[in-house]
């Protein structure tokens, strides 16, 4: 039987705003499958986003949804989670929203290890504003504000998250659709701050400026560069050159923020929730 996505979709809110060929819809479907696998209760689930194409996702999902300001999703979500630790809180957004204007909130959410899951759709570009370079646009690639090639080096979001203290970090791609929900399920189940980076495509503002002739070519590129962590173990550095690791990249058990704050309440002699 076909999977019933409508279970978690708000009636009357589709079609979505994303361009043909954009991978955000693939990620949204993966997220919905993950929510279904975990049996997440709609009233007890908050989906929080910032600004950008990917950040429009919460509007389509039938939960408590919060479309905040540019870059601020992690900080708003921290407030929701701290006030109601019993809620499942999922953040969604893009690379510019999360790692440029929202970079400070992102690394501190990682550091606090607060029990939320951040799904970052990394399409290497500011799509909504028409294709300006982002912190993940590769060096020398073209964007509307790097007509001579991008002079900036780029962030590795997963490494950034691990370095900042996130205790679950995974990476998938929009091509490997069947892996997305599995990564998100594990991320939500993990107690602590989990980051799932999904390498995505933006044919409209990134692909056409960087010699991708079609969406298929962009998807094939994601297929070619992705190497599962297990497979990488058997590969030489030469073989791994230009490749991107996918799967669960990092996992550790560390004290979670809301649980630690509950201990503060107990030490202060306050009422247990």
């Amino acid at each position, binding site marked *: 039987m076909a999977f019933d996505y409508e279970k978690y979709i708000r009636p009357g809110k589709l079609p979505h705003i994303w361009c043909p060929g954009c991978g955000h819809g693939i990620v949204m479907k993966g997220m919905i499958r993950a929510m279904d696998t975990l049996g997440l209760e709609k009233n007890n689930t908050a989906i929080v986003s910032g600004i950008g194409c990917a950040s429009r996702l919460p509007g389509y999902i039938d939960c408590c949804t919060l479309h905040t300001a540019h870059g601020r999703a992690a900080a708003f979500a921290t407030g929701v989670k701290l006030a109601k630790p019993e809620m499942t809180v999922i953040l969604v957004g893009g690379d510019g929203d999360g790692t440029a204007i929202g970079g*400070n909130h992102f690394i501190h959410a990682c550091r606090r290890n607060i029990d939320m899951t951040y799904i970052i759709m990394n399409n290497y570009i500011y799509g909504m504003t028409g294709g300006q370079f982002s912190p993940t646009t590769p060096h020398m690639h073209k964007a509307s504000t790097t007509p001579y090639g991008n002079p900036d080096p780029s962030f590795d979001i997963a490494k950034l998250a691990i370095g900042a203290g996130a205790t679950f970090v995974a990476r998938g791609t929009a091509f490997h659709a069947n892996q997305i929900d599995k990564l998100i399920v594990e991320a939500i189940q993990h107690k602590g701050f989990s980051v799932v980076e999904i390498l995505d495509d933006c044919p409209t503002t990134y692909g056409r400026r960087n010699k991708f002739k079609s969406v298929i070519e962009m998807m094939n590129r994601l297929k070619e560069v992705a190497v599962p962590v297990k497979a990488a173990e058997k590969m030489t550095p030469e073989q791994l050159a230009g490749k991107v690791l996918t799967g669960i990249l990092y996992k550790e058990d560390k004290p979670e923020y809301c649980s630690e704050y509950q201990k503060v309440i107990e030490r202060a002699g306050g009422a247990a929730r």
Partner: protein
Amino acid sequence: MGKKVAFLQGNEAAAHGALYAGCNFFAGYPITPSTEVAEVLSAELPKIGGKFIQMEDEIGAMAALLGGALAGSKALTSTSGPGLSLKQELIGYGCIAEIPCVIYNVMRGGPSTGMPTGPSQSDVMCAKWGTHGDHPAICLVPASVQETYEEVIRAFNLSEKYRTPVMVMPDEIVAHMRERIVFPEKGEIEVIDRKAPTVPPEQYKPYDTSFGDVPPLAAFGSEYRFHVTGLNKMQDGFPTTKAAVVQEEEERQVRKVEGNVDDIVKFEEYLLDDAEIVVVAFGSTSRSARYAVNEARTEGIKAGLFRIITYWPFPEKQLLALAQRGVKAFITPEMNLGMTHGLVKGCTEGKAPVLGIFRVDGEPINPGQILDKMKEVK
């Protein structure tokens, strides 16, 4: 048994006023001269099962505040000038998404880093015009430790009643001086909570104006689920660019405050009945003004004090009535370069001269300065 009395600093009183009002969530970032509010609440909130979080920056603090408030908390943040500038982005979010919360801002010298430990009254325009776009603004300016306690409670009440961010702005002198404070008994001061929805969950709309200009607000994690955005929105909370809807919603958001000025505007009239010279002052400056008025009276000068307690909405109607009744002059002493002066000139329609005393050197305005200005009035 008598009432509980203490000797408190303005900032400490603000924290205790918040607790009286039912505050159970604080998000902030350290900044002089407001940090004591955070310090007191970091100790007090966990005792009642409340939440305190020190965020990574001022913007993050404002964001966490709004998130906590949407999850049903009564939320407070404290800051000062530079922090208020940073918070403006999300104060606008709170206004358009209609999220109740209280911002306590201690006024220090500015612009920029200015004089972190010097008093000022130069953030009052920022309270209304700091965030972009049209939006409602409520700003309260207490003049004593006792009043700081009470105005913080009133700020929570107005915020919950009108579903909008409310600011309390003592100057640094009020925030850091110590005075006797008498704590009200439980129940002595009314505490207002936001109107909760009564409709079945499937009928709930977060901006349903069939309940009036202030629609009931549900909490995330309750039986109601809904969408919140910083985009112009329809009654169901989803974005719209439909001209008529945007116009009506923008007007309603401002009308919540501008249509209820008599409920929100608070002021004190001191010796105004026969006053020919009216000093219009607020915060610590109003204490110098009161002293100057008393001195003037002993010298036969008919002076009085109009003390602003609600700065926004500005008490335009009351000041115009005074001007129309006939006064020789208004005097506006303030620790800025004429913010209140301009407002008083505007609302009194040229019916009387408005003389300013402006000080931005980090020193308080003393009664002698005000008395001297009174003597200039012909």
